[in-house]
C-alpha cells in the first residue's frame, strides 16, 4: 500500500446550498472509482474538514459517473450573504478534498 494524494485519482467540483457545501469527486479512470468508494468515506471527509464542517457529512454514490457526492452540513458560516468567509459558497472545497491522502495498491 502506498499513500497517494486524491488529486492523482480524481477531479472535483464544489458548490453550495445555504450553509451546506457539496463536493463532488470524479474518478479520473474507471478503475479508480472502487478505490474512491473504499477510501473516501463520510467519516474521513468529516475528519479532513475538521474546523470547517461543523455538521454531518453525507455521502452519495454515482457509479454511472464514477463519482461520489458529499454534503458538508454547517460548513459556510451561515452561507450566502450571512457568511464572513472568503469562500462563502465553498467553491474551493473541491480541491481542499483532493488534498486528502489515501491508501492505494498501485496505479
Amino acid at each position, binding site marked *: 500500500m502506498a499513500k497517494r494524494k486524491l488529486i492523482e485519482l480524481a477531479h472535483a467540483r464544489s458548490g453550495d446550498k445555504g450553509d451546506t457545501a457539496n463536493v463532488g469527486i470524479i474518478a479520473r479512470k474507471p478503475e479508480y472509482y472502487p478505490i474512491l468508494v473504499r477510501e473516501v468515506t463520510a467519516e474521513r471527509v468529516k475528519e479532513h474538514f475538521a474546523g470547517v464542517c461543523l455538521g454531518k457529512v453525507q455521502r452519495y454514490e454515482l457509479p*454511472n*459517473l464514477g463519482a461520489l457526492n458529499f454534503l458538508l452540513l454547517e460548513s459556510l458560516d451561515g452561507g450566502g450573504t*450571512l457568511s464572513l468567509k472568503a469562500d462563502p459558497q465553498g467553491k474551493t472545497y473541491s480541491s481542499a478534498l483532493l*488534498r486528502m491522502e489515501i491508501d492505494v495498491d498501485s496505479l
Partner: protein
Amino acid sequence: MSKVALGGAIDLHCHFGPESVIGTPHSVDALGAAADAADLGFAAVVLKSHDFPSNAVAYAVQQQVSGVRVLGSICCDYWVGGVNPTACKDAVLDAAKRQGISVSVATVAGDDIMDRLDAFLARGIELKNMDTAEPLAAVRAHVQSANVYFGAWPVVDALAKGAEIVITGRVTDTGLALAPMIHEFGWKAGDWNRLSAGTIAGHSIECGAQSTGGNCQVDWDTIPHMEDIGYPIIEAEPDGTFCLTKHAGTGGRITVASVKEQLLYEMGDPHAYITPDCVADFTTVHLDQAGPDRVRFSGIRGHAATDSYKVSISYSAGFKAIGMLVYAWPDAYKKARAADRILRQRLDRLGLRFDAVHTEFVGANACHGIASAEPSPEIEPQLAEVVLRIGVRSENRAAVERFTKELAPLALNGPPVVTGLGGGRPRVEEIVAYWPALIPKREVTPEVTVWPSGS
C-alpha cells in the same frame, strides 16, 4: 472634467431626480444630466429611474437637448424591472414599437406572495426554513420579499398561447430549458423520465460555461481560447436524449469530464433532484463523447413531482463588514496573526459584542482551512505576503461601524510593513439573507398573460 477626456463617451447608467423610491436626492434632473453630457461631448447618455421605464422621459429630453443621444432604460429592481415582469413587458413592447417590430410578449406572474404571507401564517402554513426548520414567524418583521419558484409549465402555457418572448417572475433555471422541449415535442405531464431529461439538460447549461471548459479541473491549462469561451447549447430529441455542444469556432472544451463536473455542481441527493416539474435521478445519466466538443446524454429516469413549490424569501439579518490588511515579508504570517490578536483585544476593550468574528489569513490557509495545514516552519517566514482578512457580523449597526474604524490605526500602531488601506474603511453592509421554504402547490397559481404587439 474635460471634453478631451469624455468626448465620445457613453454614460450607460445615469440616475436622475426627482425620484420617490430612493431616499437621497439626486444632484441633477434628466434635462440637466443630458445638457451636461452634451456640453462634455458625450456620444450618448442612458437615463435610469427607480420609478419607471425611462423611455418617455428620454424621448422628451431629446426634443430639448441636441448634440447627444438620450436613451431610455429600465432598472432591474422590483419597482421597474428585474422581478417585476409587467414593467419589463412594458419596456420590451415600447422598444419593439419604436423600432417597428411586431412581437408577442407573455408575462408569468403569481410568484410574488409577499402580500399573502400573513394570511398563510394565520392559516398554519408556517413557511419553515428548509435548513433550520425554524418557522418564518421568527423573522416575519424583517422579510423583504417572498417569491415562489414556478417550473416549466407556465412557460409552456405562454408558448402555447403564441408568445415569442416570455418574461417570468421567479422560475427555476431548469424550467427555462425544459419548457421549450415540452412545447416542441408535446411531452405530457406525468412523463417523468422525459421531464427529468429536460430538467437535467437545464442543470447542465444553467451556469455559464461551467460545462464547456470553464472552471474545469481536467487539463485546465490546455483548454483553448477561454477569452472567447463558447456557452453550452442543448440539441434535444423527442425521446429525451440530447447532446450538449457549443458553437463552432468558440473557445473552451466539452468532454465527458467537463460535463460530469457541472452535473455535480450544487448537487444534493443525486437520486432526488427536486424541481417543481419532477424529481430527476442523476444516477441514471449515461454520458458518451459523441464527437469533438459534443457529449450525448441518455438513459435518464425520474419520478413524480412533489406537491410543494419552493419559496425564496429574503429578510434583513443585521450588518457585517469585512476588512483586509496586507502584511509583507519577512514573517508576514506571524505579523498578520499578531495583528489579529491585537485587533480582537481592541474590540474586547471597547466592549463591542458581535454574533460572529471571523479571521482568515489569505496566502496561508484561507480557502482550505485545516485541510491545507499550517505553512511549514521553513516556508512560513519566507511567504512574500499574507492578507489578514477579518469580518464581523451583528444586529447592531453601530458596533459594526466602530469595527471599521479600528483597521487604519492598526496599520500605524501595530506590526510593521503593512498596506492595503488605499480604499478607505471597510463598508458596512446590510445583510439580506436567504430563507428557503416550501408551500403546497394548491396555494399558488401562475398567472400567464399574453400581450399582443402594440398593447
